[in-house]
């Protein structure tokens, strides 16, 4: 079969190749519908990706083009048309999710987007955003567990949690707390000891880690034992 198809291919006879394939593989045509669900989904995502980008551009254009006018309407107390808030909702949710995924995290940008959403009274797609934000934070905390001395990472985590607490987003901190607890149990005592010896970096770490514990709802005096 292989030789037959290859030699036909080399002759450049396309009609014959199709005929040979029908002969050898049967006449049944398989399509996207026959794929297993997850594979089907990932191919469809590629296919709709382009359309979604077109949507995004169109909505963004509409939103940005009319923002000033709508702002004026709002200021003068005239109800803002639904078509406008629909475009705003789409564009702002899209932008905020993108901004959360971005590295390094642009805190100001996310805050500004959240405020814009509040101003236009459009809802945050919190299920999606919570999931994205949580997974990012969990990834960062996992990294911190592997490299607890990474002070910059610790600061980045603190910044992110501060940010998420400042926007209307209820994050499930469960796994992040677990990781914090493990780090506290494994490393806090050592850091505290080094900090006590007058090492500035270590004492900064201890302070930041303490404040992070408070933000994650820990009873600091029970969890961060110094002895």
């Amino acid at each position, binding site marked *: 079969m292989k030789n037959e198809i290859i030699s036909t291919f080399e002759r450049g006879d396309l009609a014959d190749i199709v005929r040979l394939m029908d002969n050898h593989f049967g006449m049944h045509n398989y399509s996207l519908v026959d794929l297993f669900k*997850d594979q089907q*989904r990932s191919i469809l995502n590629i296919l709709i990706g382009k359309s979604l980008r077109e949507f995004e551009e169109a909505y963004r254009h509409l939103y940005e083009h009319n923002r000033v006018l709508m702002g004026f309407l709002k200021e003068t107390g005239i109800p803002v048309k639904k078509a406008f808030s629909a475009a705003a909702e789409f564009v702002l949710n899209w932008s905020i999710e993108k901004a959360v995924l971005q590295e390094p995290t642009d805190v100001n940008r996310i805050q500004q987007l959240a405020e814009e959403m509040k101003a236009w009274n459009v809802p945050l797609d919190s299920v999606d955003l919570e999931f994205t934000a949580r997974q990012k934070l969990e990834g960062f905390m996992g990294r911190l567990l592997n490299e607890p001395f990474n002070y910059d990472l610790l600061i980045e985590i603190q910044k992110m949690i501060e940010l998420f607490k400042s926007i209307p987003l209820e994050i499930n901190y*469960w796994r992040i707390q*677990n990781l914090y607890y493990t780090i506290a149990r494994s490393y806090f005592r050592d850091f505290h000891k080094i900090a006590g010896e007058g090492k500035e970096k270590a004492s900064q770490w201890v302070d930041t880690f303490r404040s992070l514990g408070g933000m*994650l*709802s*820990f*009873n600091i005096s*029970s969890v961060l034992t110094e002895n």
Partner: protein
Amino acid sequence: MDRYVCIHGHFYQPPRENPWIEAVEIQDSAYPYHDWNERITTECYAPNSASRILDAENYIMSIVNNYDKISFNFGPTLLSWMEANAPEPYQAILEADRQSVRQRAGHGNAMAQCYNHIIMPLASTRDKRTQIIWGIRDFEYRFKRYPEGMWLPETAVDIETLDILAEFNIKFTVLSPHQASKVRRIGVGKWKDVSGGQIDPTRAYLYRLPSNRKINIFFYDGQISRSIAFEEKLLNRGEDFLARLSP
């Protein structure tokens, strides 16, 4: 007098794998999770492995593994999924059993379960044996010890099932109070009627099988179990739960 509370948690999910690809396919109803196994693991099985002890202001004082404090059983089909897809809670469950073996004179918290969630009295003798043998083997593979107890799906039971359990040296199972008809003290002739769920669930019972084998039976507290399953807020605060348990 010391008083004890004995809690058993039965954790089970059916095999959701597509047999062609041996993987669980995407389930949109579990959004934002990929599928229901993932979602229930995040919402139930994992939280029990790292449970919070809170102070009066709801700040976390410590994080504990509930599984080393309760009797529990996980269906083998669920554990095989967790082993590959949720290694953190899976390892916490195995560790809890090891921990409990050390704490309770060699008796671990984990109970085995019939391999699938099969209603045992409806199965043929050979299927009953298969379910029990597979359940034991799976348990040994994961927990590295021989099981002492075995959970029967829906606590459905007949004498033959109990007899096969005893034949394989399973020491105990857990049943519903409505499955007991009468009891008597060992060595005393007079039977006491306990039908209609009246059996005292605060002690263990010995069942002598027609084959002369024996098996121990614990009966769960019907009312309390129902409250835990259906009264939404009962487990929100340990204090509320304790108050509900106190007679």
